[in-house]
């Protein structure tokens, strides 16, 4: 049984804004084992980015407030740590890959220095050794002519190359946990695939744990071991990739699966969307936050927030539909079809 390196317990984060107090993260629980990849999926406003930034205490306080909860990294709670103490953790034990490679690199600093900066900050090595390591990293992330590239500026790299540099920077101090905040969203689809491959390779070779934030279920299927689906600041479904893709239980997850565009779609099949918009988190709705957009919502969904129901040892979902008294809803057609497709592809692959 591999070691658990991260445990997040009932994390609640608020933001003080002119419009009021925004409850961005409303009680999030998950854990992560050594060497595994957890994908956090959700739409904009679900709280996934806030959660990932919160893990590294990168939320500016004010206006952010760590209302309650714990972030246990290797048993140590990060929430009460001061900024100075956190600085020893950041880049060193936990590193982050940001979304937009065009803006996450300092435009007036040479790329090589942006990598060695991390190494020199956390490891007692000479400048020459740091440079050597940086060039190794550039090679590892697949950048040709690394010695030349070391002295170049970010604008001399393409988007995909820049993201590789960002990954190199993240790996520079051998972190145990990598948080990737939508690392491929800003890239072309073909480049996306390359970056994902790169990350999988890295994980295989160095046993880093990865938290992968995304809104794209296709990416999830590709890289994740386990998945947490977030909606309106909470995790609504949680399980292994197989659990989520072959046996989804939450209507929101159904909506996500149903709305995935698929090359095998029939031309005259309409793409299913989830109607409506996410709720305003300055006034989180009573009950199940997804109720208003849920065609299967029940009266109780508007009254009481559902607890997390356990579906299996690995699989949990936060919906009243799993209550013994709830009607048994068959999987919507679109979702069932999607799952058939997955199964078929899996079978093909295995042959």
């Amino acid at each position, binding site marked *: 049984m591999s070691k658990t390196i991260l445990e997040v317990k009932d994390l609640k984060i608020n933001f003080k804004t002119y419009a009021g107090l925004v409850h961005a993260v409303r009680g999030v629980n998950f854990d992560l084992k050594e060497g595994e990849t957890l994908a956090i999926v959700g739409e904009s406003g679900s709280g996934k980015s806030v959660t990932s930034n919160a893990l590294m205490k990168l939320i500016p306080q004010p206006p952010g407030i760590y209302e309650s909860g714990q972030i246990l990294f290797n048993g140590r709670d990060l929430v009460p740590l001061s900024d100075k103490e956190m600085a020893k953790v950041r880049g060193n034990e936990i590193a982050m890959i940001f979304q937009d490679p065009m803006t996450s690199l300092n435009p007036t600093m040479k790329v090589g220095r942006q990598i060695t900066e991390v190494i020199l900050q956390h490891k007692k090595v000479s400048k020459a050794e740091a440079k050597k390591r940086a060039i190794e990293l550039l090679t590892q992330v697949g950048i040709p002519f690394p010695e030349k590239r070391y002295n170049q500026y970010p604008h001399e790299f393409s988007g995909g190359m820049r993201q590789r540099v960002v990954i190199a920077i993240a790996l520079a101090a051998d972190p145990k946990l990598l948080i990737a905040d939508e690392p491929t969203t800003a890239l072309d689809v073909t480049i996306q695939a390359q970056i994902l491959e790169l990350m999988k390779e890295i994980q295989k070779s160095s046993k880093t744990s990865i938290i992968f934030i995304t809104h794209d279920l296709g990416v999830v299927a590709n890289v994740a071991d386990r998945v947490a689906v977030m909606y309106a600041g909470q995790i609504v479904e949680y399980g292994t990739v197989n659990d989520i893709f072959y046996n989804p239980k939450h209507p929101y997850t159904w909506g996500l699966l149903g709305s995935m565009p698929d090359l095998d779609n029939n031309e005259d099949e309409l793409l299913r969307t989830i*109607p*409506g*918009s*996410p*709720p*305003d988190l300055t006034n989180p709705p009573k009950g199940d936050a997804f*109720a*208003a*957009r*849920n*065609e*299967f*919502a*029940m*009266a*109780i969904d*508007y*009254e*009481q*927030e559902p607890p997390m129901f356990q579906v299996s040892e690995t699989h949990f979902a936060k919906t*009243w539909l799993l*209550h013994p*008294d*709830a*009607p048994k809803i068959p999987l919507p057609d679109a979702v069932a079809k999607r799952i058939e497709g997955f199964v078929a592809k899996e079978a093909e692959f295995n042959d």
Partner: protein
Amino acid sequence: MTQQPINKEMFKIVGGNHDATEKLADKSVSFWKEVFLRFSHNKMAIFGLITLIIIILMAIFVPMFSQYKYSDQLGVFNSPPSADFWFGTDDLGRDIFVRIWAGARISLFIGITAAVIDLVIGVLWGSISGLAGGRVDNIMMRIADVLTAVPYLLVVIVLLVVLQPGLFPMIIALSITGWINMARIVRGEVLSIKNQEYVLAARTLGASTWHLILKHLIPNALGAILVTMTLTIPSAIFTESFLSYLGLGVPAPHASWGTMASDGNKAIASYPWRLIFPAIFISLTIFAFNAVGDGLRDALDPKLRK
């Protein structure tokens, strides 16, 4: 969280209510209303606006109703501020208080007129250049580039030396290069709007160029134009004062704040109030226009729009 007892009734399917969510999310306010709201939250801008309104009102009414007229020589020379003469008197025995407000009329008139002239020329130059595009645009902008390189204050000084100081020569001199900035900004707006899809759409629907200018170009460019104009005025007031110090200001008996300051500066050792009062009002007015202009610019900034 209060736990109500759960009964089987509550598990009847009732479905979603998503139209409500759409309505809440769509609380869109009209563009100008939003601009106004953001502007009114800017304390400095509001302070500047109020200051300007007070100054303008005083400039209009004080000379009308004051017991002294601005050119009246009252036989009390160089006296410090007192109950009779709130801002003191100058070397010809004139009441400085009423002269400040008469001077306000002139300084503001000069500043605003120069800004308006810059507006007209700039908008024409910029829109023609932007709409025409191609070689015409190129040439017009090259001319503007060369003219920008010319250090304008020097040309202005030479111009005034030649034209003999006066109210209208002053205005002409001040508007001479300000239009270039306006032209550039207008051209920028024209170019960005020209290529927007809604313009292409309107065109395909048969809209004429004139209609496009009126209905689309001007409302969108209005913000930038307004900001530029508001920020040109304090620059004009500054330059007018500057030129007055060089002896090129409006001639007596009219007085602008610039000429009053210049005269006051000569006598500063003995009668400091003759410089202090015009100095205060020049600075205050420059500040107020800048504050309002900055406030407008921030209120219009699309990046800040939520």
